[in-house]
C-alpha cells in the first residue's frame, strides 16, 4: 500500500475514486434537490439556485449529477466482486483439477472472448429483461472469464510449489487445498483484477445506459444524462459535459489506482487486459 501511495499517479487515482465514492454515498444528504422531482421550467441556464441549470424535464441537473454515479457504481462494484470471487474459484479449481473440467472452462472463456461485451449483455437483456440484478449478473459473468484466465495461470504455477505438494501428500481434500493453500496466494492478483474489472464494468454499464440497454429512467445516471442531453449540446453544453466528465474521471481514477497497485505488487496490469 505504501509503495503504491509513493507514486503520484496512483495517489491521484485513489483520490479520484475516494471522492467519487464519498459523493455517491452522501448524495441524498448533500444534493440540494430530489433528483427525480420536476422543479422548474425545463432548460433553465445555470444560476444560483440550479448550479448546472435544469434538464429537459425541469429537474435539477446538479442534484442528478451527484446522484448519477450511485447505481452505475453499485452495478460495477458488485459485478467486479462477483467476477473476482467466482473467477478465482473457477480458475484455481481448473488449475487444481486440470483435465476435462479445465478444457471446458477454457472453451467457455474463449467463447466469451469472441462475443463483444455489449452484444453479450444485449442477449441477456433480450432474454431476461432490463433490471439492475440482470445487469449485475450479466456484467459479472462477462468480467469473470478474464479473471478465470489470470488466476488459472497463477494457480498452475502455485501447484508446483512444495507446500502444495506437501498438502496433497498429506491427503488434504481438493477444496481445502484450493481455499487454504491457493486462494490466499492469489490475493494480490485478485485485488488488481478487482480494480481492472470494476473499471471496465463501469465503462460497460455507462455505455449500456447511453444505448438505452442499461440503467433505465427515471433513475439518475450519468450515461443516461449524456444520452438525454446530446441533442442539447449546442445550447446547454453543461448538461452533457458534466456527466461525461464524471464518468471519465471515475474510470481514470480506478485505472490509475489499478496500475499503481499492480506496479507496487510487481504484477503487470496491461496483461490482465480489459476484455
Amino acid at each position, binding site marked *: 500500500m505504501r509503495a503504491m501511495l509513493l507514486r503520484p*499517479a496512483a495517489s491521484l487515482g485513489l483520490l479520484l475514486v475516494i471522492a467519487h465514492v464519498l459523493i455517491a454515498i452522501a448524495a441524498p444528504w448533500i444534493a440540494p434537490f430530489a433528483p427525480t422531482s420536476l422543479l422548474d421550467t425545463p432548460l433553465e441556464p445555470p444560476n444560483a439556485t440550479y448550479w448546472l441549470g435544469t434538464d429537459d424535464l425541469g429537474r435539477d441537473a446538479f442534484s442528478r449529477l451527484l446522484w448519477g454515479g450511485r447505481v452505475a457504481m453499485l452495478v460495477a462494484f458488485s459485478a467486479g466482486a462477483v467476477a473476482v470471487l467466482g473467477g478465482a474459484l473457477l480458475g484455481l479449481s481448473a488449475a487444481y483439477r486440470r483435465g476435462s473440467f479445465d478444457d471446458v472452462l477454457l*472453451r*467457455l472463456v*474463449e*467463447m466469451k*472472448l*469472441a*462475443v*463483444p*461485451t*455489449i*452484444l*453479450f449483455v*444485449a*442477449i*441477456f*437483456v*433480450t*432474454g*431476461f*429483461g432490463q433490471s439492475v440484478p440482470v445487469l449485475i449478473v450479466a456484467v459479472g459473468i462477462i468480467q469473470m472469464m478474464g479473471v478465470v484466465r489470470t488466476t488459472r495461470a497463477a494457480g498452475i504455477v502455485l501447484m508446483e510449489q512444495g507446500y502444495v505438494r506437501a498438502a496433497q501428500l498429506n491427503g488434504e481434500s481438493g477444496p481445502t487445498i484450493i481455499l487454504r493453500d491457493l486462494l490466499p496466494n492469489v490475493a494480490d492478483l485478485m485485488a488488481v483484477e478487482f480494480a481492472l474489472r470494476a*473499471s471496465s464494468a463501469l*465503462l460497460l454499464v*455507462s*455505455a449500456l445506459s*447511453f*444505448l*438505452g*440497454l442499461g440503467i433505465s429512467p427515471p433513475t439518475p445516471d450519468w*450515461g443516461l444524462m*449524456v444520452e438525454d442531453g*446530446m441533442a442539447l*449540446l*449546442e445550447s446547454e*453544453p453543461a448538461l*452533457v*459535459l458534466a456527466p*461525461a466528465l464524471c*464518468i*471519465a474521471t471515475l*474510470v*481514470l481514477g480506478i*485505472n*490509475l489506482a489499478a*496500475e499503481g497497485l499492480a506496479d507496487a505488487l510487481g504484477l*503487470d496490469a*496491461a*496483461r490482465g*487486459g*480489459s*476484455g
Partner: protein
Amino acid sequence: MIYLILRRGALSLATLFLLASFIFFATEVLPGDALDVSLSADELAMMPPEVLARRKAELGLDRPILERYLSFLGGLLTFDLGRTIITRAAVADIVTMPLRNSLALAGVTLLLALPVALAIAMAAAHAKGRVLDNAVSGAAIIGYSIPEFVTGLLLIAVFAVWWPLFPATVTASTDDPLGVLLAAAPLAIATTIIGSIAYLGRILRVGLIEVMASDFVERLHLSGIPRWRILWLHALPAAMIPGLSAAALYAAALVSGVVVVELVFAYPGIGAELVRAVTRREVHVVQAIALAAAICVVLFNLVADLSIAALDPRTRR
C-alpha cells in the same frame, strides 16, 4: 501446418457452436420461448390463452425444446436466419446492409489506427522511461479510460458545434455506397480510431519493452548494433506475437466500440439495429447480430492465431 490449420479451424467452429447454443438457451429456453420474449408482460397478460397457444403452434413453438434447438442450429448451417416473430420480415434482409456498413467502419479504423499505434509504440519504446514514453503511457491510460461515447461527444462539441468543420451526425442512409457513407462519417471514424490507437498502442508498447529487455536484444546490443536497428529489425517482429495474441480481445473491443459510436453519430450499422431490435424485442434479429459479430471476431482471431504459428515455430505443436 495443414494439420494446425484444421485443428484451429475446428476449435473456432466449436467456439461458435457453443456460442450459438448459449444464445438459443439464453433467449428461447430460460426466459420462455421466442414469442414470450417478443411480447411485453402486458401484451402477454392481455392475450387469451387459446390465442396464445394457436400462435405458438403457428410459429412451431409448441415443439419440444430439443427439436427447436436442432432446427435453430439447422437454420444457421443453411444461413437461414428465420423471420421476425411479430412482423414476419426476413432477418437476413434486415441485418445484411447494417452489417456491411459496420464492417466498413471497423475495417477503415483498423487500417488507419494500426500504423499510427505502431509508430507511437515504437517511439515510446525507443525512449523508455523518458518524457516521451511517460507522455505516451499517460495519454494511453486517459485514452482507454474515456468511453467512446464521451470521445465522440467531445469531437462533436469541438469540430461540429464550436468550430463547424464536419457534420455532427451521419446524413447518408443505410443503402448508400460505402464511399458515400464513410465520407459522411469523418467524426465517427475519428472516434473509433482514437479508441483503437489507445488500445493497440498500449499492448504494442508493453510487448516492445518486454522484448527490448530480453537476452537476445542485450546480445545484439553488445555486438554494437545501433538501438534503432535492433528496434526495427529484431524487436518489432518478436513483439508482433504478443500483439497478435491480444487480437481477439481487440477485435471484440472494436466491435463494442463501433456499436456505441454508431449510436452517437446515427451511423446506420449493426449498433443502431441492435438497439432497435432489443427495445422492440425482435429476438431473432438480436440473435443474428450477436452471431454475425462473433463470427467476425472468431475469424479475426483464427487469422491472428495462424499468423502467430507462421511467425513463431515454437507454437506449432
